[in-house]
């Protein structure tokens, strides 16, 4: 299995522990990743609110490059997934696609409109097969109670994400947690917003969202929350102390990147998975899974 790898900015920026963890896990699973040369940001929905054409053209450029590699696209970011899917959805309009291709022509690129970028989460379920994970699982996670947190862009809007064709995508994270042998802590907020997009605009509201979700699952007895979205991770982990002080309570809920949870189940050490780089200590969780002696 080989993919054109689209890591996204945050996996090498604000959440630098994600990139190596994802690479290591994919490598051990036999999923070969070849990074798209000179890939650009998807626009994260931010560029699109000001200049949709520019944002969509950037995505078409990445897709065209992957097509040239002859490989399907794999991403490790919910936000990138959503923005790529939405851009792709709009480019189903042949006139719009032609307009975008006219801009790409200068660089000698052309996008066919046929790419289907997929998050590693979907790939594990749809291409790899969750049952194929079993032989790689060496660490018992039964005692570990994990709450899913999707990130808005990988669940909505359903039309752009082809949910009608792939209804299992709406339960994908729970399916993965279950396949890894951990215990699912279900909660209503799992598909809600983490607050990251308004962090610099209305920090109070952003912190209220972090506080609400993390304290809710903490009170349900979760040991950790797992997310396929590094932007959610930035807010839920990096800003959790601030959210806790705004909520006037302690929370201390470790937030795991999805590949880190997979890696833990595969017996990798917390250190090599970058858990030491988290703001909220993962110590108690490490003790629980026996990763810390």
């Amino acid at each position, binding site marked *: 299995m080989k993919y054109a790898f689209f890591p996204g900015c*945050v996996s090498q920026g604000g959440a630098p522990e994600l990139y190596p963890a994802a690479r290591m896990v994919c490598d051990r699973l036999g999923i070969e990743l070849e990074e798209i040369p000179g890939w*650009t*940001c998807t626009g994260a929905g*931010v560029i699109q609110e*000001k200049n949709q054409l520019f944002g969509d053209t950037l995505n078409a450029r990445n897709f065209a490059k992957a097509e040239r590699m002859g490989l399907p696209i794999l991403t490790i970011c919910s936000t990138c997934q959503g923005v790529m899917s939405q851009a792709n959805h709009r480019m189903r309009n042949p006139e719009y696609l032609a307009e975008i291709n006219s801009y790409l022509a200068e660089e000698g690129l052309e996008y066919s409109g046929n790419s289907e970028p997929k998050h590693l989460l979907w790939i594990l379920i749809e291409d790899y097969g969750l049952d194929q994970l079993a032989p790689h699982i060496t660490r018992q996670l039964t005692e570990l109670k994990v709450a899913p947190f999707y990130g*808005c862009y990988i669940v*909505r809007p359903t039309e752009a994400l082809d949910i009608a064709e792939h209804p299992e995508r709406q339960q994908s994270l729970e399916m993965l947690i279950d396949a890894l042998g951990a215990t699912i802590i279900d909660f209503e907020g799992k598909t*809600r917003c983490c607050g990251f997009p308004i962090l610099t*605009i209305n920090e109070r509201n952003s912190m209220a969202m972090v506080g609400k979700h993390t304290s809710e699952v903490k009170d349900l007895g979760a040991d950790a929350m797992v997310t396929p979205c590094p932007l959610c991770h930035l807010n839920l982990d990096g800003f959790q102390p601030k959210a806790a002080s705004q909520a006037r309570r302690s929370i201390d809920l470790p937030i795991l990147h999805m590949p880190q949870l997979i890696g833990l189940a595969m017996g990798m050490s917390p250190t090599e998975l970058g858990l*030491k780089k988290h703001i909220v200590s993962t110590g108690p969780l490490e003790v629980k899974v026996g990763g810390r002696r």
Partner: protein
Amino acid sequence: MDVTIRVKRQDPEATGERRLPHWQEYPVSIADNATVLDALIQIREDDDGTLALRCSCRSAICGSCAMRINGHAALACKTIANTVVQNGVITIEPAGVMPVIKDLVVNFDLFWEKIKQVDPYLKHIGQVPESEYVVSNEAMLHLSGVTACIMCGACVSDCTVLEVDPTFLGPAALAKAYRFTADPRDGDNQGVSTERLWALSEPSGIWDCTRCNECVQVCPKGVAPMDRIMAMREQAIQAGYANNNGARHTDAFTESVGHSGRLDELRLPIKSVGMMNLPALMGYMPVALRALRRGKMPPIAHKNVENVEAVRRLFQKMEPEPAPPQVSTNSPFG
């Protein structure tokens, strides 16, 4: 079809346990093509006359029966029951955000207050035309996408911002505002609703939306409130109302990617809150220091992507010239 309707009930005026939210299950036998509303009416008529719900037209026009079905807002009359059964159960809750009056009936005061706040009527500034306003078919067709709103409150129910902050104008009122900012008759003689866009750029307005897409997903009429909010952000920036964190964030983000191909995460928050905004910048210090201690700061030197010139050329071709900044001294809405 036999199905269990699990309803979250509450009667704030009652005494005892019924006062608090609690679940009640109703096993019903309904036709295969019955709607969720059909099932609820059947329960009320045949099994339990105390179950309170609002409904009227039964054909997705009146907007009375928005409620949460399996956790997400929807019109009960537009939802075919057999499409939402999960393991023999359909879970029904009152709409969110708005306070419960009884069972599935919520108080809409907050909803209407927000609609009133955006002055939901045409406001022309300047010279009034001698005869009637002439508006193109195209402009009205575009507006029909927003005027399709039936004020059911589904978007307000599931708005992730209103859930934590009742001061936010919210998706319904903001979609209503767009109905005017995009109307060529509103605003100045060029159809630019400068006063509205100024007011909407204030806190609790267009920039407070998280872009979570919940409202787009749950709207039964395809109004896509969030997309309208994004369009108003563009309108506001174009009209020169860019002196706020939201507009600065969008500008800085676009510029960073337009110049280097990727996001400069270290400089983005600084540019968003403003270089001179020392209190806000100081507020980030503890977070930055914690990140630094853990070795997870974004790289100080931001690198360009391979063949960055191609990206810059795209950016130069597509990015419109910024409008001159607008200075407004007092609010047109008092």
